[in-house]
């Protein structure tokens, strides 16, 4: 009734229907850039809703190799932005090689690959019959390369029996299998493919998504490669079928291609599925490459239309807290192990002692152990552990949950091996508890090794620090003694030599020895370090002040020159230098002499700079007074004036 009403209204008032528009222009389809013509309607906020016929074309020369040409054609329909009905894909790759031109006719070599897929959708999901063919064109002939006929999809999953063939030089590769409702792999699956240079036949037995076993044979010599029976899976299925399952059930979720009843990556059950699953994945990638829900832009299969099933196991309350605690503990452990395994100081100093060598080897071993443990912890963290039959772990304890670890290292010329033992009580505790307890032991061992490393490195750091300090002092002392000696050097006046010699005796010898005694007396590292720094400071200060000390007399001579002026005596008719402002100059020289004496007798190295600053200040003041009117000042200056009096008069 409702439908009739709507249709009647639309007939009467066709403007009620949203108007369909046509787009024609550039378009990107699943990462392929081309042109498209499609019908659309405008939704809210001018949103483009594809609705109606859709066509996509791509003709493109490869950017890197212009002998390669791509051609893609896609025809289908959208309904409210979702794929609907029949869709046809045709994708070609041509490699054109120019061979010759004869009688103005181009002679080329053409090698092509053609991919044709006819698919069906309902509301954007694969639904209906799909057919796929892949052809190859070479030497003028079109040959089939792969095909899959009668693949039926139902609500996004493959259902029923299907077959996929690939035609290769060695033989035909194929997949033959049956899929139940919901995409569950079922019955006997036959896979024929190449693996590691061998032509392999793999037969798998599924029951409603559960892999019960597989057999691999080498088709060339009919030898058995591998045979696996998943006994525990069969056992559990029987219990379920007999409604005798306790503590587990079949999970409601559907899982990917890889069947995992509780297998770690290094389990045979995983390893032996890999090659067959890779072949199935490549088939699925081919037929679903235009469906973003299944194959992403990088060409990776992100969703599969065929599934396996798993059991879900109950986790008791105690184990549930371990479920949370284990990842936390692991992360903390991982952080420490990563830090210490990459610690440069530990690597560099591992030969200082056997305990450091052992600790270094320990952390390297644990780095690997932590990585292996990561897979298990990831299961805890993601809660996927609930799908794991922990009985497998109990039968075959993961290698990284060993009861002892051997640490091999070299110290001196010896090869040493140490053992770390772990207590694993798997009789009483659940796997969760076992893992948690194991982690606790790992944490304890890591903490132990860490504290050994920290203590040793801190001591090395301190000792090394003091050694470096003493070395620096020694080097600098030798340099300063050399700097403050003259050793036959000329070019220095006796006054300069006398001044420098006084500093050498008072500061570099007497004061230095005094500080050195303080340094030697200290036991505490911090205080000793401080005392050492003071000595270094003394030496640095003397290095800085040395050039200034050598300049004192030269600068004073400049001032002396300034206070001499050439005069022409108009009575004797001679020119000569005559002291300017004699009394003032003499006062300045007296103060200068005092400062100089103070420097020469100074035993506190920090005061040298102070006296030098005073001399500088005196010099600048004398320069100022040279040009000033100093008659009144000169009258007040008295040869018998004290130093403090002179300083006051000179405004110092």
């Amino acid at each position: 009734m409702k439908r009739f009403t709507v249709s009647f209204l639309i007939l009467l008032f066709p403007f009620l229907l949203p108007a369909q528009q046509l787009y024609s222009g550039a378009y990107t389809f699943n990462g392929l850039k081309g042109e498209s013509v499609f019908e659309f309607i405008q939704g809210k906020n001018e949103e483009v809703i594809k609705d109606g016929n859709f066509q996509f074309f791509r003709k493109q020369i490869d950017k890197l190799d212009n002998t390669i040409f791509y051609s893609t054609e896609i025809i289908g329909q959208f309904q409210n932005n979702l794929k609907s009905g029949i869709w046809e894909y045709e994708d070609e790759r041509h490699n054109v090689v120019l061979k010759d031109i004869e009688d103005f006719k181009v002679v080329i070599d053409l090698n092509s690959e053609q991919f044709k897929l006819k698919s069906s959708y309902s509301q954007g999901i694969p639904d209906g019959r799909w057919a796929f063919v892949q052809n190859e064109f070479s030497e003028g002939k079109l040959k089939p390369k792969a095909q899959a006929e009668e693949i039926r999809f139902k609500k996004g999953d493959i259902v029923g029996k299907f077959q996929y063939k690939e035609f290769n030089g060695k033989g035909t590769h194929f997949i033959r299998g049956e899929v139940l409702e919901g995409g569950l792999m079922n019955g006997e699956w036959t896979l024929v493919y190449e693996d590691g240079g061998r032509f392999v036949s793999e037969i798998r037995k599924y029951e409603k998504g559960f892999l019960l076993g597989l057999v691999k044979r080498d088709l060339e010599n009919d030898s058995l490669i591998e045979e696996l029976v998943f006994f525990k899976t069969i056992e559990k299925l029987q219990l379920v079928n007999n409604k005798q399952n306790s503590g587990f059930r079949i999970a409601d979720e559907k899982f990917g291609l890889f069947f995992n009843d509780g297998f770690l990556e290094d389990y045979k059950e995983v390893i032996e599925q890999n090659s067959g699953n890779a072949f199935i994945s490549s088939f699925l990638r081919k037929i679903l490459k235009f469906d973003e829900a299944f194959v992403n832009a990088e060409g990776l299969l992100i969703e599969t239309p065929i599934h396996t099933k798993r059991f879900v196991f109950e986790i008791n309350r105690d184990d549930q807290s371990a479920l949370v605690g284990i990842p936390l503990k692991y992360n903390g452990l991982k952080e420490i192990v990563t830090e210490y395994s990459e610690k440069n100081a530990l690597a560099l100093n591992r030969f200082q002692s056997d305990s450091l060598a052992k600790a270094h080897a320990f952390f390297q071993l644990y780095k690997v152990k932590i990585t292996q443990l990561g897979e298990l912890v990831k299961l805890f963290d993601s809660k996927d552990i609930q799908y794991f039959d922990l009985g497998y772990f109990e039968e075959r304890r993961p290698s990284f949950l060993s009861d002892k670890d051997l640490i091999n290292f070299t110290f001196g010329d010896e090869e040493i091996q140490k053992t770390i033992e772990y207590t694993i009580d798997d009789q009483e505790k659940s796997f969760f508890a076992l893992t948690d307890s194991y982690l606790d032991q790992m944490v304890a061992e890591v903490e132990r090794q860490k504290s050994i490393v920290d203590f040793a490195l801190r001591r090395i750091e301190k000792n090394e620090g003091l050694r470096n300090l003493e070395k620096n002092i020694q080097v600098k002392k030798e340099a300063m003694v050399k700097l403050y000696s003259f050793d036959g050097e000329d070019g220095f006046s006796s006054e300069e030599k006398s001044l420098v010699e006084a500093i050498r005796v008072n500061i570099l010898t007497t004061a230095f020895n005094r500080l050195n005694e303080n340094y030697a007396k200290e036991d505490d590292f911090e205080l000793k370090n401080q005392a050492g720094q003071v000595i270094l400071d003394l030496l640095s200060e003397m290095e800085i002040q040395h050039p200034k000390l050598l300049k004192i007399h030269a600068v004073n001579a400049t001032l002396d020159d300034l206070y001499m002026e050439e005069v022409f005596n108009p009575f004797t008719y001679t020119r000569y230098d005559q002291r300017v402002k004699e009394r003032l100059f003499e006062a300045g020289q007296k103060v200068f002499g005092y400062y100089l004496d103070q420097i020469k007798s100074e035993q506190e190295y920090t005061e040298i700079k102070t006296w030098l600053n005073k001399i500088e200040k005196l010099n600048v003041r004398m320069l100022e007074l040279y040009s000033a009117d100093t008659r009144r000042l000169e009258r007040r200056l008295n040869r018998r004036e004290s130093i403090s009096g002179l300083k006051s008069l000179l405004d110092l």
Partner: protein
Amino acid sequence: MLLKNLCRGIKVLVFLMSISINPSIAQETAITERTNLAPTTESWNGFYLKLRLSDKWFWYQENHYRRKNSIDNRSDFVGRISQVYNRFGLTYLIADNFEVTFGPTLVWNFTPDPENPEFVNSTLEPRFWHQWLLTQNVGRVKVLHQFRFEHRYKRSNLIGADYLYTNRYRYKITAYIPLNKPRMENKTLFLAPSNEIFFETGNHILNILEENRVYTAIGYTHNNFMFFGGHMWTYGPTSTPGTFRNRHIIRLNLMYTLDLRNKRRPVIKATDLKF
């Protein structure tokens, strides 16, 4: 001894010159012997000032206070006031060893006998003078050649006496001999012997030789000052032909020079004095 010989030599020279210059005197008056008056004593204290006004120009000034012996005591040097002597001038320094000076002189000549009412207490003697001064170095010694010319109006202290005009020609040779320094410079002790000969012309002048002065001084330079002192002996004719006078004069001089050019500007900066 040396001084004595020098005096004797100069006496001879002067005598010879007087005979050669004035043959008429020899002809007119037969002077058969020379009469030397008893020596008198004087004390001359002078202040010499030279101010440098620019690179080439100086202000020159002399101020003297001169006394002579008492009438009744020829050897007391200071019994009577003799002269107050002020010489002024502008000097142009052509080179370090050659300068010219010109200017006025004002001299007050005091009565030879303050008790004598026939004498005025003092008479003014204005002069215009100019001189050339050349210097030379002879090893360490500085030799000065001073050529001074004066044009003066002078009268005696007798009441009603007329001004008589004379031109005076003076040549002085001085040697500055440093004793404690290699050359004449600051803080130098030196000897400064000199000899100055005076010639005079005028309508009333019979003998153009006026006087010869021999001066031996010792001095010391100290910054802008020069201290100078010594004994001078003068010998020369009097207005009475054949009669010569001589004087022993103790001279004490103070010289002062000052440069009045631009203020000092240092050629260094404060940063040159920092370490």
